[in-house]
């Protein structure tokens, strides 16, 4: 019931990185080894883990900056730059490969969407992911937290264009 919840703010002005970090830490301080839940909370609110957060986290959690930096960079989930408004992740693990995942990657790149990159207008980030647990109904794609199965190039196009909603 913790990470992922939006943090309430009373006014726009107190949403500095530092204040967000301190509030996230305050909410998780009672937990054992709270750094990962705090980082998830930061990313949920800010869309990424900005560099300025690192010293504040280190101070609040009594860790070295190197430790915090090491954790942020170790995990694929934590971004140091904001992603596009939509994030589309294409599964490239074996079961989806067996069903043509590489065609989806090719389709995306032919549409100018290279893996790991955000479109210049900031609309879409396309990434690879290794398995979404939908291996019997691949190729699988996840868009903004929603899972899609049996995705061919046409369906991926629809997802990328936002026409597959709900």
């Amino acid at each position: 019931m913790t990470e992922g919840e939006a943090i309430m703010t009373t006014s726009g002005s107190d949403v500095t990185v530092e204040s967000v970090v301190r509030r996230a830490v305050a909410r998780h301080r009672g937990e054992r080894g709270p750094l990962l839940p705090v980082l998830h909370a930061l990313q949920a609110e800010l869309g990424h883990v900005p560099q300025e957060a690192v010293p504040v986290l280190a101070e609040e959690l009594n860790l070295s900056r190197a430790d915090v930096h090491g954790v942020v960079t170790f995990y694929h989930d934590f971004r140091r730059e904001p992603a596009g408004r939509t994030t589309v992740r294409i599964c490239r693990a074996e079961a989806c490969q067996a069903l043509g995942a590489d065609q989806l990657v090719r389709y995306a790149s032919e549409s100018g969407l290279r893996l790991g990159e955000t479109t210049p207008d900031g609309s879409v980030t396309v990434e690879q992911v290794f398995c979404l647990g939908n291996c019997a109904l691949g190729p699988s794609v996840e868009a903004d937290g929603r899972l899609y199965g049996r995705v061919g190039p046409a369906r991926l196009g629809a997802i990328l264009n936002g026409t597959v909603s709900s």
Partner: protein
Amino acid sequence: MTSTSHATVYVPRDSAARSVGADEVARALQQASERGDFALDVVRNGSRGMLWLEPLVEVATPQGRIGYGPVAPEDVDELLAAGMLDGADHPLRLGVVDELPWLARQNRVTFARVGVTDPLSTEDYEAHGGLAGLRAALELAPADVVAEVTASGLRGRGGAGFPAGIKWKTVLDCADELKFVCCNADEGDSGTFADRMVMEGDPFMLIEGMTIAAHAVGASEGYLYIRSEYPDAIATMRQAIGIAREHGWLGRNILGSALDFDLHVRVGAGAYICGEETSMLESLEGKRGMVRAKPPIPAIEGLFGKPTVVNNVLTLATVPVVLAEGAQAYQRLGVERSRGTQVFQLGGNIAHGGIVETAFGITLRELIEEYGGGTHSGRPIRTAQVGGPLGAYLPESMFDLPMDYEAFAAAGAMVGHGGVVVFDDTVDMAAQARFAMEFCAEESCGKCTPCRVGAVRGVEVIDKIVAGTHRDENLALLEDLCDLMTEGSLCAMGGLTPLPVRSALTHFPDDFLGGRRLLEIHPVRATEGTA
């Protein structure tokens, strides 16, 4: 055509079913009900694991639950008009779901309730045998619970197959005040989704299993480490834990006993290696997921240095039934030292993908051909990778191997987590071997050189072999590298990556002679995360 009473209609809430439109189907049914056209209640159950039939809609009738599938949202009005609520005929009608041969032939023990019940209904849970295992365990002294689990022959389902009872006994025998039970729900292996289906489809079973473990070893706190790629499982488990607390199934004096145990969900952050148990513990402690050298084993020095049970989701989820029905009943299933049932997961290019729970000893061919019905593409099968990305690629000539830990190990393969990924004849095995190395390079924790550097070299060497550059020398080099990784790696990430590579080379040498197109690999942040 309208039924007089409210019909109960089941539409799975499992994320695989949702990935092909289950939410839209449920909404269409609800709308028909709201319009007053039909009187029905929609229950969002787990999935029966016949994933090619999803969305599978079931209607409760006096004959049993009648299934229709796969149902598209636009089929709903027609199905209702045809009399689906009374179980009427329709081209999508499958018959009584429990009697479908695919399901009827299985022996569902761990998955007995998955797809049958409403995952978050405590009444449904108890009505279908839930809590019987915990109640039985609480009647027993901790050592007797451990003895029961040991006698059942239950081995860890996370891949290595270590006997659960022996691990538990080690933790029980530690004198510490503070002990932990950690459930490994990282399930990063391609082709595995059973952990996810348990968490989404029968979450109380996992809570019950962890609580029994806590009683057995004297733990007061539990952690459930779920990978971030599973948002639905995370949400369901959090809800279920909240409900369990309200019902006195977690917290202080569980079910009126002296047992105090609470459970927390922790979310991973996209690192495959965090499925390795010591790496998972590091991650739970808020650190980088670097593998720890063993000894000390986690059972003695685990989370925050305390004695810790680390078990896979399926292992812990199987404990309640072992306690409820007795060790003997469980032990009677299976072969040799592989006792009980295994939850096989059929994925990849397969016509009938899904969950097959059956006693150990079934052959790969029965799984792939009889249950799986061949490939999804309709083309000939070329290979199956068994046991996840670190498992071997097996040619069809080996499909008669019985699924049993020792038999697979003897054949140079592994059962692992029970995932079977099928490929048709368009697969390029050099590309698959290259991918195994690439995956290892991308996901290595970086602690030891054979894995961190070896995997990168492995990709380069395979590229040279395929390009025909000094082929023989590079083949010898690849052999050498595989030896070094096998012998010199600290954990099975680097130690087992040679398995898919070598099996591809051994069984499909022609693919390495060039000609087939190589899969493009996109290293994303390859330097980060490998430190």
